[in-house]
């Protein structure tokens, strides 16, 4: 289980407008590309000084590749990162203000506290 890597994916996609669009349009392709090219980049180190050990589990790869925010919540993704990126990708598809945010909440409606642990 690599909650940190899920969060790193959400974080590095969310801060890049081109990657937000790419992930929206081609989730599985973007996840595969990111895992092979970006997952091991240490953000404040030169590209050559990369890590060697970070990879998704199958469940994590499927959840990210399926835009499955319920599964990502249940895997312990950081909820701020999750919400922010998914608003960026999908709010535009809803006519009413906050309609996406409310659907997001409703789809998690079976959850009561305590929620999945977001500690990394």
């Amino acid at each position, binding site marked *: 289980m690599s909650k940190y890597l899920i969060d790193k994916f959400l974080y590095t996609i969310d801060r890049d407008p081109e990657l937000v669009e790419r992930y929206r349009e081609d989730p599985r392709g973007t996840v595969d590309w990111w895992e092979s090219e970006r997952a091991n980049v240490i953000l404040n180190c030169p590209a050559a000084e990369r890590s060697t050990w970070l990879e998704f589990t199958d469940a994590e790869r499927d959840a990210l590749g399926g835009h499955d925010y319920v599964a990502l919540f249940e895997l312990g993704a950081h*909820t*701020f990162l999750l919400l922010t990126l998914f608003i960026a990708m999908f709010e535009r598809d809803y006519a009413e203000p906050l309609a996406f945010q409310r659907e997001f909440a409703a789809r998690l409606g079976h959850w009561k506290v305590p929620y999945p642990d977001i500690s990394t």
Partner: protein
Amino acid sequence: MATIAAVIASTHHPFYLRASTATGDDRPPFADEWVAKIEAFRETLTRARPDVLVMVGSDHFHQLWLDNMPQFLIGKAPFYDANYYNEEREFGLPRMGLRGDEELSAYLLRGGIDAGFDLAFSNELRVDHSITCPIITLRPQADLPIVPVYTNIFAPPMPQPKRFVELGQAIRALVEAWPSDKRVAIIGTGHLSLELGGPRQFGPHGPDPEFDRKAVEWIASADLKSALAEVSLDSLWLPGNATHGFMDFMLMMGVAGENVRADYADSLDLFHTMEAYFTWYPEASR
């Protein structure tokens, strides 16, 4: 010695700018009341005639990341660029720039470290809406130099609530002992009950109105004893999964001084989360 011109604690609501400037059908029904409350709150800072602002807030995974996460950090730079692409995208916040007071930053870092807080520092910090929201609400001309103080209310493991209070008390004591003739306002923003990315988000009120009612009274009376007795890192998950931002209010209660009632207190029940505004004038009680 420096004068603490005002101590201000507030929620920071990134939607205020958009709501307050919207017109016609886009203007939400609560906008006029919200603007009136903010303008009254702004006057509490204006009348304190500050020269410099110590600004307590928290990075929202912008510059600070999980590969190197400080618990408490003070910016020491001559200038702070502000706001990020994803804040522009989601909240309509503009890019901003704020001058820094490096002398006060250096003084707080040295004094804070010597007082037992192993503070991180940053010489190049791009601040986010936790700092710019109170600039927009309280000092929209953005003309005063700042010292940003960042806390980790976001990424477990976080410091204990008690530690936030103690840091607030230390900042108060340090600023009061600063050999300067400047008037310093200490401004901190956090949250009451708040849910982000969970089933209780974006409801008609904050996720836990009962917590909010108690929290507003704790803050208004700086009732640290009750707040510390009821609040823990574990308990803060219960009112809403982003409620650890309340610890920045606890820090500000430490700045204000235990059991010192706020000279100004106001709140506004909005969708999603409750707004709350508090000002103390330590000068008047000296």
